[in-house]
């Protein structure tokens, strides 16, 4: 059974590059259709229920915009 996770995108940092979307194996993410103060369309959890907290999105993110939470279990990857 996949673990449960959740992410948060810092919309000040996010530039809507979509690399997190590309990286997520669970199709959790999408770009928002309203733009941020800096004029970008930030990523958000389109399918939050699918998130396993694997952090691949955060590892791919060039702007360190993503924080990842996960159900506590042993032996998980921390900071790639």
């Amino acid at each position, binding site marked *: 059974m996949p673990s449960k996770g959740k992410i948060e995108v810092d919309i000040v940092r996010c*530039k809507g590059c979509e690399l997190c979307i590309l990286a997520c194996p669970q199709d959790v993410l999408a770009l928002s259709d309203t*733009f941020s*103060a*800096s*004029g970008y369309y930030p990523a958000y959890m389109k399918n939050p229920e699918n998130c396993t907290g694997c952090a691949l999105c955060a590892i791919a993110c060039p702007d360190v915009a993503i924080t990842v939470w996960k159900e506590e279990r042993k032996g998980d990857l921390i900071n790639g």
Partner: protein
Amino acid sequence: MYQGIIIAGFGGQGVVSMGILLAYAGMVDGKYVTFFPAYGAEMRGGTANCSVIISTDEIAAPVVGQPDSVVVMNEPSFSKFEPMLKPGGRLFINSSLVSSRSKRDDIEVIEIPVNKIAEEIGTLKIANMVMAGALIKHTGAIASEAVVKSLPKVYKRAKPEILKLNEVAVKRGAEY
């Protein structure tokens, strides 16, 4: 006549080519013109801006300190350039993307949903031309025929149908 214009937006919004078109058209119209882009590191992060001056007299510096007109094609440009506008100047806002509204009462604000209009005409790519049309109309700095004449000179490799679309866009913009 002296018009100092700043045009600002995202990298892909055709801000620079809009500026060049205006300068070219000004030249065709017999005016003194200069065009001055932001360059180098200022370009990083996807924003772009440029200054255009159109004048009946020789132009000192191409740098526009206090613009007569400001064009903001996106949100970040609004906060950066709206305050610089000269009292009595004109603020052209791409209302399709910019939600901020100016609180100044000493300027004229022209809001045009250029993205929407451009999409109606057929392609988002000509949003800048819609804006160009509006600017020419309101400032009266350049004869609009000069703009139409300049289009094929500035977009040398564009196909006739694209040029046509650009022309339409300029005209639609001029209706605002």
